């Protein structure tokens, strides 16, 4: 389990994160919401070891994250960054195959996993194409397939951190992508995903962390967090919240 205790992060004179505690539960998707500059990506950065906390600690299975050897950690924890800057003409399946680097499961098994991960990210039809020839959204799905392949099939003990995986996607693929992440969690993985779309968060997340200026404004179920007063306080928008007519999760409508 990936756990964060009393986490604070300063960058120069700025207090980026203050006193955040949370644990990613197996089988659950935690959504992170908050306005620009609230500290969402910084939180993800600390949780994957890219940034060092000024205070508090990050543990994976009760062991400090930085004490884990790189390869063992990579077998447990995968990270999808917001943007990727790959500038070389790898083929799609080669990019996804890099997800298998921390493992020694053999060529054959790796190939099966690559295919499955590509299907899950709805990128199976891109096989054989050069990464550089893809559109922004297609690239994002290829990288999703890569991190899925890294943790495939996503059983208990695996942790997936996603930074705005839907930012470049069309509506259909926003849903297919989060559906794939959801299924991953359903197989036992713990997922944290930074999102901007409140309704996507309401539909796919088990819990939601609402960040405001580096502090946890709320950390609870979508029903508890996505309320007009909280959203007004954090985002400064007036909304109506109604239950989804078919699914029952909160549906947020701007007024």
């Amino acid at each position, binding site marked *: 389990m990936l756990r964060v205790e009393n986490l604070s992060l300063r960058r120069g004179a700025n207090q980026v994160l203050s006193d955040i505690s949370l644990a990613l539960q197996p089988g659950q998707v935690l959504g992170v919401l908050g306005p620009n500059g609230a500290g969402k990506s910084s939180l993800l950065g600390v949780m*994957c070891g890219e940034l060092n906390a000024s205070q508090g600690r990050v543990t994976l299975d009760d062991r400090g994250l930085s004490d884990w050897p790189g390869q063992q950690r990579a077998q447990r924890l995968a990270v999808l960054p917001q943007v*990727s800057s*790959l500038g*070389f003409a790898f083929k799609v399946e080669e*990019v996804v195959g890099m997800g298998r*680097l921390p493992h020694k499961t053999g060529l054959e098994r790796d190939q099966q996993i690559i295919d499955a991960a590509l299907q899950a990210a709805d990128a199976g039809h891109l096989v054989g194409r*050069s990464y550089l020839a893809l559109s922004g959204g297609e690239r994002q799905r290829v990288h999703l397939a890569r991190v899925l392949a890294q943790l495939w099939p996503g059983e208990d003990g695996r942790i997936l951190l996603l930074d705005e995986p839907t930012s470049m996607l069309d509506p259909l693929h926003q849903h297919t992508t989060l559906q794939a992440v959801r299924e991953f969690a359903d197989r036992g993985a713990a997922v944290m995903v930074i999102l901007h779309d409140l309704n996507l968060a309401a539909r796919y997340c088990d819990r939601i962390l609402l960040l405001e200026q580096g502090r946890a404004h709320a950390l609870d179920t979508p029903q508890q967090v996505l309320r007009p007063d909280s959203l007004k306080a954090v985002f400064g928008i007036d909304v109506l919240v109604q239950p989804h007519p078919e699914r029952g999760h909160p549906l947020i409508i701007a007024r």
Partner: protein
Amino acid sequence: MNRLVKPRTLFVTLTLLCLLAIWLSLALGPVSLPLIDTLRAGARLIGLPVAGEGLEQAELILGQIRLPRTLLGLTVGAVLALSGVAMQGLFRNPLADPGLVGVSAGAALGAAVAIVGGSWMGGIPEVFAPYLLSLCAFLGGLGVTALVYRLGRRDGQTNVATMLLAGIALTALAGAAVGLFTYLADDATLRTLTFWNLGSLNGASYLRLWPLVLVAVVVSLWLPRRAQALNALLLGESEARHLGIEVEKLKRELVFCTALGVGAAVAAAGLIGFIGLVVPHLVRLLAGPDHRVLLPASLLAGASLLLFADLIARLALAPAELPIGIVTAFIGAPFFLYLLLRGRA
């Protein structure tokens, strides 16, 4: 852009090309030896019981001139191409060149110190001159690269962008120092410096060859072990870390291999441009960026290209010879442009 050839086809072709280059490099030269003499002398050199009468000249040309020169060309070409791959991986940029980390500029400065400084001290004893020059060039390359690496480090992390800028700054600084030496040098010393800067496989001897061969073996065994890590590095440094790669260690190894390899190559053969830039790029255009293919293929292609360039260097103006740096640039640059334009179409 589709890949033009499969890795297997590429390896077979490059191996044949390399063997052809070696053969031509041994068989051709300003002295025309009959084919049968070359073969018999070659057989005698590897210890086969072939009658040796009338073969003295062939054996001498083959054993003392062409063979060390061919070996020098092979190793220099291979090491330069591998270093190019390492640098393009480190900087995640296909236009990176081994010179970026200051190794060439440092080596040039070392050479200038040896050549010009030597002439001030009333000349270095002839026996030591080439070794001192090689040593100074090697140390200069290593020293400047170490400084660039040092400047790029902060809080235990190597910032590649800072390294790049430090490399540019130190290259300029070393260039200015070479310029100063150039200014202070007399006419004859200046010519020596100019020719050294253009590179040459001329005068290869076994004694100067073995340190380079040692370095080449180390570099070409080490880098391919890091092929997968280099692939991951192309995704980005943090992505590579999340895939379990020890990125800091990898960067250190890449810089070290390049400094060692290019330093030794430059020390043995002077500055030879374009191989480190063009060869990896060329292989990538042909067979894709996967370092498991790219590294060994660049090794073969770099070795072959340099041998072919050297053939031109020694035959074009025979009995005089062209500096090989001129030939590599003349072959490399247009070929590079052709591939770029073709890729775009």
